[in-house]
Structure formats: structure tokens, C-alpha cells
């Protein structure tokens, strides 16, 4: 039995309304998109750069976080450096009429970090459900893939696992001034 409790669930409908940012918000984005200053008072450092008060910087960051413009302020680990060698993008061809339920169930698996529906490109690319799995080794990752296959059962009309062999670039979002 699976408990159908979505921990974090959103759809494009929810994301269809962009938040309006003013020029100062935009300058805060540009000043912090490379990272937060590693100084005891990082928000004061940003404030001094922009010529506004630290209180205003913090207020605006809180507002952007509340509205979802900022998902969170956080450390982004490098999978490889942390010993995760089995980083696989698993891709599945499942019936469109069942994909929402199947996607939610796959997303609830503890070893799945991201789960999305994406478009097929027939005939080259038949897969419409993507789930990222991370394990210390490829063998262990492949066992996790079998768990997903078992969960999908007859709805698994074909799947593949794409292991990453090299990070070619990882900078994150960079808007231009």
C-alpha cells in the first residue's frame, strides 16, 4: 500500500502568474545570484553595494521567499564530491491518461529527487515521465530503477536510465544586468 501524501506538489497552473519585481528587487537578484557574501553580515554587504538599508534588503528577500521567487536560501551540494556516483535520470513511457497518478507515486519514493512530466519527441524520444535517482553506485541506482518499474507495473511501456558521466557546466541561474 502506498500513502498518497504529496510533500511538495505544484503544477504549471500555479506558476502561471509571475510575481512583479521592481528595479530594486532586480538589483538584489543580480547581486546575489552568484551566491551570498561569506561575511558575518551578508545582507549588510549587499545593502552597501546597492545603497539601500540592510533592513530593506532583508524585507525584500523575505517577500521574494514568501512569494516563491526564491525557493530557499541554501547550500547546493555537488553530488559527485559527496560520493554519489550513481546519478541516473530515469525516463519512462507511461500512458498519458495515468501519468498524474503515476508521477505522484514515483515522486513519493524516498530516493527520487525530482519527478516531472515532459513532452515526447516521437520517434526519437518516446518517454514522458522523468525521475532523478541518486545512489552511491550505479548498481545500487539500477536496483532503485527496478523498484520504480515494479511500482509502474503494466504502465511501464519502456524505460531507460541515463547516467551522467561529466558535469560540463553547473553555474545556476544567471540573469544579465
Amino acid at each position: 500500500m502506498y500513502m498518497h501524501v504529496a510533500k511538495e506538489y505544484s503544477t504549471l497552473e500555479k506558476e502561471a502568474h509571475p510575481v512583479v519585481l521592481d528595479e530594486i528587487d532586480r538589483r538584489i537578484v543580480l547581486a546575489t545570484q552568484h551566491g551570498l557574501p561569506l561575511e558575518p553580515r551578508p545582507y549588510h554587504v549587499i545593502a552597501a553595494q546597492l545603497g539601500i538599508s540592510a533592513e530593506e534588503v532583508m524585507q525584500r528577500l523575505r517577500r521574494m521567499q514568501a512569494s516563491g521567487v526564491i525557493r530557499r536560501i541554501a547550500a547546493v551540494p555537488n553530488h559527485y564530491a559527496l560520493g554519489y556516483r550513481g546519478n541516473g535520470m530515469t525516463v519512462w513511457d507511461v500512458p498519458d491518461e495515468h501519468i498524474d497518478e503515476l508521477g505522484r507515486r514515483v515522486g513519493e519514493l524516498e530516493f527520487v529527487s525530482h519527478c516531472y512530466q515532459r513532452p515526447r519527441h516521437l520517434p526519437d524520444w518516446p518517454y514522458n515521465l522523468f525521475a532523478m535517482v541518486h545512489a552511491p553506485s550505479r548498481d545500487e541506482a539500477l536496483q532503485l530503477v527496478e523498484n520504480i518499474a515494479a511500482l509502474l507495473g503494466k504502465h511501464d511501456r519502456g524505460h531507460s536510465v541515463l547516467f551522467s558521466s561529466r558535469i560540463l557546466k553547473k553555474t545556476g541561474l544567471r540573469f544579465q544586468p
Partner: protein
Amino acid sequence: MDAIDRDIINTLQSGFPICERPYAEAAAALGIEEAELLQRLKQLLADNKLSRFGPMYQAEKLGGAFSLAAMQVPEEEYDNVAQVVNSYPEVAHNYQREHAFNMWFVLATETPQRVDEVNADIARRTGLPVFNMPKLKEYYVGLRLTAES
């Protein structure tokens, strides 16, 4: 990496305070001094154990777009194509994967139209088709990597 580094990575993946001395607050929760947390974060970033540390912005919420795109690149052209793709500031990540579709990159753009423009430009410059695979629905996004000894 020692137990304190692992504790820092595991704890700071999920969030960081917005206050006057946020490193001091985060350090207190970890049982270390502010100066030690700053020093260790600098080292983790220098060693590339952390890719970055700071606000994670959502391009969609900023009126822009995120999109995943994939290419099938012949081995002998691989490095040149990677150079072309990586040259766009809109390309946030790019991964080599073991598959006929062997190059996968994420675009973060300021306008939704810019995704198609960049993909078209890459296709024109490389002579290879670019398959755009934007997310249609998001079922789960989380961070569950645990730094273990």
C-alpha cells in the same frame, strides 16, 4: 570532509536565516562558532563540495522560464558543441550522459521566448537538432542527498 562539514551540508541544504547575523544563527544551531562556519563554507566551495551557496531563484516566478533540452552529439564534435552550448549565460547546467542523447542542458531565461531563441541559435551554430523538453508538470522536487562518511 569531517562530521562538521557533513552536518553543515545536510543542514544548510534546506534553508538559511534572513537576519542581521545569519551565519552566527546557523552556526549556533550546528554547535560551532560563526567564524568557523564561514571558514568551512569557503573551503567547501573552494573544494567544489558545494556548487554554490545563496538564494535559489525560480526563473518562472521572475517571468522567465526554465527548460531542459537534449542533443545527440557525435563523439568527435562533443567538446566543440559543449563549448558552444556552455557559452550562453542562459545555460545554467550542462551534463554529459551515457545515451544516444548524450548532452542535456538546462536553460534559465528571463523571458519564455528566449528558450526557443537560444535553442534555435545552438541548432544553427552546431548543425544539430535541439530537442526542447520543458516540464509540463512537476510531481516532486526535493533535495534528499545526505552527506555520509
